[in-house]
């Protein structure tokens, strides 16, 4: 397995995501939800609720969390963990913003891809 040479992958601009909203990225092996908070932070997590696989990118974004559109589980965008009494975690991906461009961690993408392939 070779290391990827581009550790950060550009995927679009911050204006592409509405504030307190989300967009999807199709990565082939999985869908990733990209969320923008009121404070213009951007988070990337797997677009699949630990409960019954609901598309988290379609949920309501609030306070660093998203509420799943199917049965209202609340998931932290920073840790990927479910809040309150529910249990479960989704995969998170590191992001950074360079001159308005959102970049995803290539390392995290590769790790996720390899995990999917291994499974």
């Amino acid at each position, binding site marked *: *397995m*070779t*290391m*990827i040479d581009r550790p950060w*992958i550009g*995927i*679009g601009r911050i204006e*592409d*995501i*509405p*504030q*307190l*909203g989300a*967009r*999807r*990225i*199709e*990565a*082939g*092996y999985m*869908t990733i939800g*990209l969320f923008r908070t*009121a404070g213009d932070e951007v988070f990337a997590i797997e677009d699949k609720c630990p409960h*019954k*696989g*609901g*598309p988290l990118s*379609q*949920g*309501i*974004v*609030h*306070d660093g969390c998203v*509420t799943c*559109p*199917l049965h*209202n589980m*609340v998931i932290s965008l920073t840790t990927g963990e479910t809040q309150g*009494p529910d*249990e479960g975690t989704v995969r998170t991906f590191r992001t950074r913003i360079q001159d308005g461009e959102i970049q995803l961690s*290539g390392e995290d*993408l*590769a790790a*996720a*891809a*390899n995990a999917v*392939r291994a499974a």
Partner: protein
Amino acid sequence: MQKLVVIGAGMASGRVLETLFETDPSAYEVTLFNAEPRGNYNRIMLSPVLSGEKSFEEIVTHDDAWYAGNHVTCRFGEKVVSIDRERKIVTGKNGELAYDKLIIATGSSPFIVPVEGRDLPGVIAYRDLDDTNTMIEVSGDREARAIVIGGGLLGLEAAAGLRLRGMEVTVLHLSGHLMERQLDEAAGFLLRKDLEKRGIEVMTKASTQKILGTDKVEGVELADGTVLKADLVVMAVGIRPSVEIAKQAGLAVNRAIAVNAQMQTSDPDIYAVGECVEYNGTLFGLVAPLYEQAKVLAKSLLGENDAFVVKELSTKLKVTGCDLFSAGDFAEGEIREDVVLRDPALGIYKRLVIENDRLIGAVMYGDTSDSNWFFDLIRDKTPIAEMRDTLIFGPAYQGGSPLDPMAAVAALPDDAEICGCNGVCKVKITGAITAKGLTSLDEVRAHTKASSSCGTCTGLVEQLMSLTLGDAFDPNAVKPMCGCTALSHDDVRRLIKAKELKSIPEVQQELQWSTPNGCAKCRPALNYYLVADWPDEYADDYQSRFINERVHANIQKDGTYSVVPRMWGGVTSSKELRAIADVVDKFEIPTVKVTGGQRIDMLGIRKEDLPAVWADLGQAGFVSGQAYAKGLRTVKTCVGTDWCRFGTQDSTGLGIRIEKFMWGSWTPAKLKMAVSGCPRNCAEATCKDIGIICVDSGFDIHFAGAAGLDIKGTEILGHVDTDDEVLEHVVALAQMYREQGHYLERIYKWAKRIGLDEIRRQIMKDHAARRAYYERFVFSQKFAQIDPWSERVSGKDKHEFQPMAELEFAQAAE
């Protein structure tokens, strides 16, 4: 640390562990075996799960976190097969384990009537979650029929649950009347009548001879030769203590495992608790005594001394709407006297059995509010000579003038039992409220366990809270909108108007929201209030809408969407149907279904395809049916004077007119209407939010019906003469509701809160008020009647429907 092994994670052992960990969490290292593949749950609440009133998650008593927090090693799904007392080892499916102390808490297993066919698939008992799930599954089939064998507590709860799930249900009962162990004949008759009213068929003196079927159950044959069809047979004829492993291990076992008052078996290192034990010749089948046993057993484990005593028990049936209570002994006897009170109109029956100046038995049907008081008289053997004449009227009539219910609760002695399931007496509740500063029902449940099992004592617990806390506790207290604010929906609506707040951040700022951007509960509510109050000025906050309203389609369980175009009044044409057929073919839409709202649903459309689907539908003249909206959904109609030989008015035309006038409007919750052409009511107008029944002399306007989570016939708003008047009245009513309703509150709930008379006064009598409502609605429609689909076809919110980026697999994984 000593090793404690527990066999069976049921209600009894669960309570032992709770008491043990509360008193001394470090005394034992605990391993818990359970044959069921899950931990302890509130088994007695399986019936609400069956009927759909509760989810399984809501009845879990100990979740994974609880076991982890108390360091319990869980071996769930593993049955213990033997106990070796010499080596002090138990053997499970996955291997052996040594113990210092052992608890057997294996409960009981259902008794299966030994008839031919009992092993066929579809014949089940009613004991655990798996049985419950099987019943729910079968009930999902259309026209499936169930037969419940056994008309006792369990059987009737199963029957009621299955009936609520829509099955045809027959109860077969061997004896002459239902619940003969708990009820006398008269009460049994009332119960039977109540069940029949719910559509449950009851056959008494019915003896099952044979279960019929080849690969699965197909029917039941009775001793008299009657054959009944069945897709499901539930046996609820009794239970047998599970004692096999105790017997094999050579412990003393009679009908169940013999224990002493410390819950010790014949082996001093082995304890037993729950339905699998026998004490002094008594067996147990209700949770109250098991919880007593559990407390004693926990103490024994910690070397403290306590003794279990058998107490009088009472029974309640947990079928919503059938209030039934029985306690003590009510067989007739020579020196026994009966006092009976009947009110056939109200369906009330009460019977007291008195022997030697003491109450020894009580049966109540229809009104069980005083049951705890009677139960205390039985248990405490209180002399009753002085109140003999008025006894049956309950505590309110004792000692002079009638007391109000609150005073009756206040008058209860400190040791009066409030929660029968958990054996919690009055002083324990009031004491905990004062000592721990409890202010909510949930807190009282958590600290005292009162009202946390079957819930029938909730009212009493609330009354005790009011007594102890005074005005500080109000069971109907206005609840805050959500965790982000202390304000109620009413307060927020009022302040939005008073302070002229016109955006969500403004509301949150001015009204001191405790979170930076609210939550998924308050944001959609605020957005609606602002849309309704400032139709011209407020810019809809798209990110505060639930996904369906954001993309104008209904999200499905697999993340695809459904699309429901409007079919005005349920009327369509060959052109429309052809356009739908073409769209279905072009986009390979997997399911096309006629909805309950007289129109067509296309299900399973990919989000990316939505704009293109709408574009094609738009070409054919369709607009969004708003099947996703907290807004106007459907106006169902019947064929009326156009075709029907009974039609009195043009119901179809009127329905279409109303739908065309009101579509696009947002409302607190969804709004569904119907117009029927005559009182035969084929459009089902009398269970709608607003319904119109055409009559010869004009139109009856109905409102506040419900046919979803609740079922309720409509109320009459009033009669008008012309269809113009119908429109004005209906629109004004809808506007009044739009201005006052709480978010997600349907019209019937709003009307209950506001009062029917007040609504009739404003809409029917106060012409100026009606006109003003009407005009405000018309004004707001100017900004609402824009077809969201065509807007999106022309590019609005384009980002919603396309992924932001597509990464190559190779780009990510190398």
